[in-house]
């Protein structure tokens, strides 16, 4: 309960007699500070997709596919933006139907007005904040499949996946669905965003098959500099992602902010040293990857754990991420192009478990983990992880099958793949630097 609310309860009591009081009572609970913070958080999370992720992914994809990666990222966010206000929000946050999905009451946001409030902020802001999560989640998936997918197929996949995979899971966890009722802890999206996107990416990449020349040809990232900048912007935006998930500008938001930054820093440090030790060189790509690994892992835990937990979560994330992308992947032999599964899926999984282990009631009475005497929480986390992974795996399979049928084939022509998707799909080049 926030300050001004208290103020107002108090006031309404005293001022019951004043004419203004009623007017006052109505919009009583809008808090301009919380609203300011949430509009900014939303803007920050929005920026993560077309700026942060486009650079992070674009810089890692081969030069001939850089713009295609941009195009897929941009359109993921654009399509999600429209889908969300039309149908997505209501499916995720409409009145609960059997714990599984939201009702259609808010289709086209009907019945939500400028005056509607969610907690202490305008409902419109809440809708948009949630929308930015839908937008980045589907965009994260493409990390597994750049360099080979037909643009048309991607657009259809994005549309179907947002509606049929993202919305239900968002409802389960945040929309009052069964996971919420079960008491699963996911502050800012370990399940909903990262495990979900990571597993979907893996499935999609398996169905697409490997890139031509994978394992044989050299596949240099087009620009580690752009990837580094992307990681920096993702970090910047992630403060909105995690601290914003408190939906208020208060102490818990500050705490989420603190652990988010700490975990990101630890992730970068541990990834770098692990890599340095194992492959003899600390790379900028490794540092950037470690930052993201740390951020992903702290996401579900941000509002529940304390500083010392965040140091451990980030530390483990850096090592885990490195092992997944540089060992596991090559052992398993799938072609998760930019490691959406290795980084987001696996570190999201670690974060979800860590939440069940480290959740400290002193930070947030809403969550008590194993270390604070509640082993049950860890169990709940495992169930929620399994359910999320299971649903998204099967669901994505179906969505991909439909997409393949509808766009006859998911993959670009062999020659187009060799020539590069920038040229074949978009008829453009990322840079035209010719001296004169």
């Amino acid at each position, binding site marked *: 309960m926030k300050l001004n609310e208290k103020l107002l309860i108090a006031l309404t009591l005293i001022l019951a007699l004043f004419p203004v009081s009623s007017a006052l009572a109505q919009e009583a609970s809008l808090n301009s500070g919380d609203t300011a913070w949430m509009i900014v958080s939303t803007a920050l999370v929005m920026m993560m997709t077309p700026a942060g992720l486009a650079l992070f992914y674009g810089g890692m994809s081969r030069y001939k596919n850089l713009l295609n990666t941009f195009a897929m990222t941009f359109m993921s966010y654009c399509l999600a933006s429209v889908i969300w206000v039309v149908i997505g929000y209501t499916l995720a946050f409409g009145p609960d139907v059997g714990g599984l999905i939201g009702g259609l009451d808010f289709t086209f946001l009907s019945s939500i007005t400028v005056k509607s409030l969610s907690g202490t902020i305008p409902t419109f802001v809440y809708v948009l904040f949630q929308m930015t999560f839908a937008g980045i989640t589907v965009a994260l998936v493409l990390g597994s499949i750049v360099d080979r997918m037909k643009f048309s197929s991607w657009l259809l996949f994005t549309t179907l996946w947002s509606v049929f995979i993202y919305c239900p899971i968002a409802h389960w966890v945040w929309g009052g669905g069964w996971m919420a009722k079960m008491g699963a802890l996911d502050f800012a999206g370990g399940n909903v965003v990262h495990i979900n996107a990571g597993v979907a990416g893996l499935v999609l990449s398996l169905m697409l098959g490997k890139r031509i020349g994978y394992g044989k040809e*050299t*596949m*240099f*990232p087009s620009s580690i500099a752009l990837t580094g900048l992307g990681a920096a912007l993702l970090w910047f935006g992630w403060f909105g992602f995690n601290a914003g998930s408190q939906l208020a500008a208060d102490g818990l938001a500050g705490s989420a902010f603190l652990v988010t930054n700490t975990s990101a820093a630890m992730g970068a440090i541990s990834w770098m040293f692990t890599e340095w030790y194992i*492959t003899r*060189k600390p*790379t900028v*790509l*490794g540092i950037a*990857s470690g930052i993201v690994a740390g951020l992903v892992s702290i996401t579900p835990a941000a509002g529940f754990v304390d500083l010392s937990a965040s140091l451990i979560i980030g530390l483990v994330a850096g090592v885990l991420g490195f092992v997944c*992308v*540089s*060992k596991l*992947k*090559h052992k398993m032999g799938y072609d998760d192009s930019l*490691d959406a599964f*290795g980084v987001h899926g696996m570190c999201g999984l670690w974060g979800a478990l860590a939440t069940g282990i480290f959740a400290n009631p002193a930070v947030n009475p809403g969550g008590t983990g194993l270390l604070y005497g509640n082993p049950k929480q860890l169990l709940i986390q495992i169930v929620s992880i399994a359910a999320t992974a299971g649903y998204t795996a099967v669901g994505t399979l179906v969505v991909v099958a439909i997409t393949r049928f509808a766009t006859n084939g998911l993959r670009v022509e062999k020659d187009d793949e060799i020539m590069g998707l920038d040229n074949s799909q978009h008829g453009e080049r990322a840079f035209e630097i010719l001296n004169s």
Partner: protein
Amino acid sequence: MKKIEAIIKPFKLDDVKEALNELGIQGMTISEVKGYGRQKGHKEIYRGAEYVVDFIPKIKIEVVVAANMVDQVIEKIRSAANSGKIGDGKIFVIPVEQAIRVRTGEKNMDAL
């Protein structure tokens, strides 16, 4: 006339240019090339994917000179480009039948 093509290490370019100036050579054309040879390339590892970069950046200098200057030029380039390490590069001599200056149409030696 002969065209002398020298493939050298990029950081040696300034030295070679000055060496040629000492011979009073007023013009040359250079380009960025990549070389494959005895000099071992290094490996780069991106998230566990290991690539050997065996095409190494080099600079190719092309200078057309009178036949009688060839030996001097070769010698100058050699001493300037030489670091004593593998990969210092090669010098090739190729016959040139004509040279024309675009601006004036001057031919052969006058064109250089």
